[in-house]
């Protein structure tokens, strides 16, 4: 399946884009996608532990299995206020 991945805040600069499409096999978890994205965009690597990941508008754990139609967002720690 092919899914859309969004980047926010300075992750857009680390990757050089606001969104990408990734083709992934069935059973792919968020952790697997994160590893693939860090390989594709090595500048995300140093942020690995602090990266927040959402599916749609909800945070999801690393073992969440990605489904057809999911939109994934990666971003750094939030800083509102």
């Amino acid at each position, binding site marked *: 399946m092919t899914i859309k991945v969004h980047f926010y805040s300075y992750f857009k600069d680390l990757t050089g884009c606001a969104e990408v499409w990734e083709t992934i096999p069935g059973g792919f978890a968020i952790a697997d996608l994160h590893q693939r994205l860090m390989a594709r965009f090595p500048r995300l690597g140093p942020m690995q532990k602090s990266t927040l990941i*959402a599916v749609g508008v909800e945070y999801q754990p690393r073992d969440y299995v990605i489904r057809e139609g999911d939109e994934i967002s990666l971003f750094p720690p939030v*800083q*509102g206020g």
Partner: protein
Amino acid sequence: MRRQLSITTAPINETVLLGQRSLSSDMGAVVYFLGVVRGTEQNSIITGLHYEAFQSMAEHQFEQIFQEMEKRWPIESVRLIHRLGMLKVNEPSLWVEVVAPHRGEAFAACQFLIDEMKRVVPIWKKTLKPGEGRVPRVPEA
């Protein structure tokens, strides 16, 4: 619990917001908070901040926080305005108001809302330092 949420590039107008206040006769406490842009960030002088949001997720996360507040305290209303875009030093970035029967629950709910916002709501800020032509996005190591 009535809710009003706005994540906006429009300036925060405190006079208008205070004029729109509405509370029933059972309410005894109104707590409101104004966050403003400080002139320093991590001991460095800055000229302003640029705020960015993942808007649909931010609205959803605020709604979840509001639902949790409603479970915990007998709040009559909550209003929250968060600015986006470029803000200068001393300009308001956040305005929050909680109306409740007693001050304890109003203070606690307001504190909870801001703490949770800073934990889960996807809004980010970038600093603008004197002499910089554009906002640096990647934090310095």
